[in-house]
């Protein structure tokens, strides 16, 4: 029953039959392929990857092995499993259980696949992940020569797209605002207060949204299965322990033999790490920035200090008691002013990377009187647009600086090149 609830709590497209897990417990080879596929689909969802029904088993096995390694699951017996997915269902069951807790698998999947009924936007300022189109980049071989005017043209086109996108966003904002404003007071959820575009359209054409209603229902069932599973959880873990017991009993002899073999099949070790390189690059750039600032401050402070001490020497009143009281007050106010800076050194407050639902709220406080039985929980995590805008402005400034630094570097290098150009002077705008 615990296993049944667990299966029903998984996303609809990745739902195994409870039997698969039971068969895996006894290490039935028939269950292996199914289990590889299960882990493949689930991990792909976690990593926002794409998959199709027809992905080859070899690719599935590779991906699952990589993902498990990535999350720290280095159990050699798993990494040594054959690439055709023909064996190892029990190992996979162990990995699956490990993921349940280690990765909060169920919760993450629920969150990732959540049905949206509202108008959502993300507040994350992380770099967009560009779709990996490495084939396109390699299409123009080294022999091909590309005219720089094509580059200019592409650039112009890109700018045009950006402008057009901006215009569309602004139009969309107007639309959203109107709908939110005019349907204010209608929503049964007091926290929201107004309808989203979907909900407004739902009123006009309910027949178009039958599927939405069904999906809401099935999601609710999935959530209810999750709750049921949480109740039955102890049973599951005890069951998993029996799996470990079985393996301990039978495996002792063969394991030590396999261990040597398996170790060779672990991912190879290299000494270069592009990820680390990228991070150090960022850190170096940041350091250079800060050091330039430090230099600037150093000079300024030295100057001001000198001026100050001159004044102090010259003026009697500063050396008296009275000033020290004022001095203390000033110190306090400076600490207050710079209070925001301490947060710079501490790790950043809760990072929000997911989507948020847009809600129009004109007043900061609203009386939250319960309304006819529906959802109106107080403990809703929320963020204000004004705050997000401030963060974005800072991010924009930083990025602008970074871009300008890169351009400056180009200017230097091109100026050098231009000097080598015979008979022509290049005057920058």
């Amino acid at each position, binding site marked *: 029953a615990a296993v049944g609830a667990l299966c029903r709590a998984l996303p*609809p497209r990745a739902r195994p039959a409870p039997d698969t897990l039971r068969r895996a417990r006894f290490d039935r080879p028939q269950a292996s392929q199914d289990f590889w596929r299960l882990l493949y689909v689930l991990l792909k969802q976690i990593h926002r*990857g794409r998959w199709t029904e027809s992905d080859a088993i070899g690719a599935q096995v590779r991906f699952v092995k990589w993902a498990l390694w*990535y999350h720290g699951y*280095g159990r050699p017996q798993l990494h040594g499993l054959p690439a055709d997915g023909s064996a190892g269902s029990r190992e996979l069951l162990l990995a699956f259980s490990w993921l349940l807790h280690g990765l909060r698998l169920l*919760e*993450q999947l629920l969150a*990732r696949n959540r*049905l949206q*009924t*509202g*108008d*959502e*936007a993300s507040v994350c300022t*992380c770099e967009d992940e560009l779709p990996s189109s490495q084939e396109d980049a390699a299409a123009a071989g080294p022999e091909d020569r590309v005219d*720089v005017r094509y580059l200019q043209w592409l650039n112009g086109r890109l*700018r045009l797209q*950006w402008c057009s996108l901006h215009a569309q966003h602004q139009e969309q904002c107007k639309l959203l605002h109107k*709908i939110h*404003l*005019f*349907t204010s*007071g*209608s929503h049964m959820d007091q926290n929201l207060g107004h309808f989203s*575009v979907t909900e407004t*359209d*739902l*009123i*006009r054409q309910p027949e178009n949204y039958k599927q939405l209603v069904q999906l809401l229902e099935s*999601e*609710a069932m999935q*959530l209810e299965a*999750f709750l049921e599973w*949480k109740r039955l959880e102890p049973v599951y873990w005890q069951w998993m*322990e029996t799996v470990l017991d079985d393996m301990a009993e039978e495996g002792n002899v063969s394991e030590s033999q396999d261990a040597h073999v398996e170790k060779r099949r672990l*991912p190879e070790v290299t000494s270069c790490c592009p990820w680390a390189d990228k*991070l150090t690059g960022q850190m170096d750039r940041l350091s250079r920035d800060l050091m330039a*600032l*430090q230099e600037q*401050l150093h000079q300024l402070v030295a100057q*001001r200090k000198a001026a100050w001490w001159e004044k102090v020497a010259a003026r009697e009143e500063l050396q008296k008691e009275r000033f020290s009281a004022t001095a203390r007050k000033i110190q306090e106010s*400076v600490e207050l*002013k710079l209070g925001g800076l301490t947060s*710079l050194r501490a790790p950043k407050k809760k*990072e929000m990377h997911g989507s948020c*639902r847009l809600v*129009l709220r004109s007043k900061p406080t609203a009386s939250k009187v319960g309304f006819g039985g529906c959802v109106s929980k107080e403990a809703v*995590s*929320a963020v204000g*647009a004004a705050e997000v805008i401030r963060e974005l402005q800072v991010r*924009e400034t*930083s*990025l602008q600086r970074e871009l300008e630094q*890169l351009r400056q570097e*180009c200017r230097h290098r*091109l100026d050098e*090149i231009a000097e*080598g150009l*015979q008979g022509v002077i*290049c005057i920058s*705008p």
Partner: protein
Amino acid sequence: PSPKELEELELLNRALEKALKVRKSILKTPLEAQGATGQKWAAGKISSKGMTSKQGRSHRTATGASAREVCAAAEPQETPGVSECAPNQQQSFSGADSAVGKNSIAAGKHLLDAGKKSCGFLAESSKKVDTVGAWGRSTSPGTGTLQEKGCQLKLPLPYRKAYSRNSRAWERCRQCQTSADAAAARTRFMERIQMTVSFPSRHRVQLLCKIEKELRGLQDVPSRLRQYLEAEPADPPTLQGEYESLLTLEGLQTTVSQCLQKLQLLRADCTGDVGSCSPACVPARGQTCDSADMLAVPLLYYSSLQELKDLFALKLQVSMLHQEIALQKVMMAELLPVLEPRPFLEGSAGLLRAIHTQLCEGGRRFPVLVRDELLD
């Protein structure tokens, strides 16, 4: 029937229809797919992450107005007038504004009854309209009087039921705690299995993720500090002002050196221990969701249209800057090597100019090349 009112009604309906047409083309994809895993009702989702909307024109205007049209200014009144809703423009509304409202109320009421299909007049009257832009200007005078009606709308019952069941389920899941028994059993299992699970890889990936996160926290520090710096007056008028300014600057100095120290430590962490790295060590997407409260969708409150517009404009700007920086780096890597080998050919001046524009001026301004004839 006032022709002006009819006209207004029609304009608003058209606007709503157009706006939703845009959403429909996005909605089509999820509707076609079986099952809902990962499918989002993307219509509402506004992504500024470089997704160029394919709906070329921006006709989304005054939608709310016609939505409001549907609902009542006051309590819904019994009107048999629905049957009068003929799907063409010659609708027999009786006279005044409120009557328009009444028929709309009736229309609304029928919508609210379990799925009756009447009053597709909203949709159908706009079918005849061609899609030309600039609705915003012509409809804004008309929307004023209809503003009151939107607040009385009610969602259809099937949806409401499903929604509240769904919301309650989410809330219960969010508050759900692992029982002590379960936690104990789980810990036993995890401990036993951890003994056989090797750690070096985990350590490294975990470390790099942590460093990345710290960097995200530090990356805006220079900008913020400069803001403070610029806020300081160049020549404080009073003595107290001068003292305050001095203390502030010293405070900034302290922060800078602390950040630099921190960066040094992070860098050491990053570069140490590279020897045990692996080709599989790449940042994985979509893994930044660490918060315990992932089962709640946070709300993003905005208070005015301008705020919403600013928000989106800035989001797009940040996204564009990310792209520009990435492009800049790639262009530097590709274009500079073209020019750098000497000796330089005569004809390359044009190339230099073009590359200069791309790399240094973002493709916007051009340097001037002047023949240096005086030297010879």
